[in-house]
């Protein structure tokens, strides 16, 4: 797997329903953010957790979200942000 999203890309987290061991928290699904950095390639925890080999490795990103866009009732500054690690197969390009 090659990293598809350079730093600064706008990406949307997939909103799919899942069961089992996922590392994409529900609260961030469907939200749009900016790639803060590429973290490298890592084995996929979704198969690794069940005795699989976690291959192919997935590019991992840190994606930055603006807090007021994540929580409609957020109290704080408009520049407050939330960075989360998300694997590439959970990201789609956003316009």
């Amino acid at each position, binding site marked *: 797997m090659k990293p598809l999203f350079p730093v600064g890309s706008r990406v949307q987290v997939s909103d799919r329903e899942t069961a089992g061991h996922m590392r994409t928290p529900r609260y961030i699904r469907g939200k749009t953010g900016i790639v803060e950095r590429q*973290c490298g390639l890592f084995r996929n925890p979704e198969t690794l957790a069940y005795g699989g080999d976690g291959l192919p490795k997935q590019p*991992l990103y840190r994606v930055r979200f603006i807090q007021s866009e994540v929580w409609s009732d957020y109290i704080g*500054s408009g520049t407050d942000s*939330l960075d989360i690690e998300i694997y590439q197969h959970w990201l789609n390009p956003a316009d």
Partner: protein
Amino acid sequence: MPHDHPHGPTIDPERLLHYQNMATAVRELLIEKGILTETLFETKIKEMEDRGPALGARMIAKAWTDSEYKARLLSNGSAAAEELSIPVDGTHLIVLENTKDIHNLVVCTLCSCYPRNILGLPPDWYKKRPYRARAIKEPREVLKEFGTILPNSTSVYVHDSTADMRYLVLPLRPEGAEGWSEDDLAALVTRDSMIGVSMAKDPTIPTRSKKKEP
């Protein structure tokens, strides 16, 4: 460490007890079957207990006094730890710098991911649901409960440690400790300040044990 902030309901204690029992049962079976030994468990537990916030404090104090080390720490936290002979066992450590304009806060909403090589075992509140749920949604409220009140001109950056990275906050160097040695500065760096829930200690307030992290 003081623990005086309020909690909502935590995990069902009976459920926790079940997993504690299961962990003990698995451990006993592993020893009984000769797969692992009691000594190995003891060694590993000791290794875990020997790691603690003093390691992180050394890194922070060095970064406060050596701008080149600080640059290396911010660009590659793991390499900067190893430079001080702190083993990281392959952990990918990201160091987040607090400034007057930015305050960083670390949480793991999914479980209890924590830079154990650098800070030791996480505090109980870090693993419990109230902190994990609230730190992402109302970080300023949570910070206030830890005594950290920030103006709106300071941005709060929350970092949810969901996967393979681990995070250490580089707290703002407090004023009033100019010319201090690295060892004395390290005594101002608390575990909580490296998670981001509080600031480093105020050097102008005398403490009973200046040199030792409680």
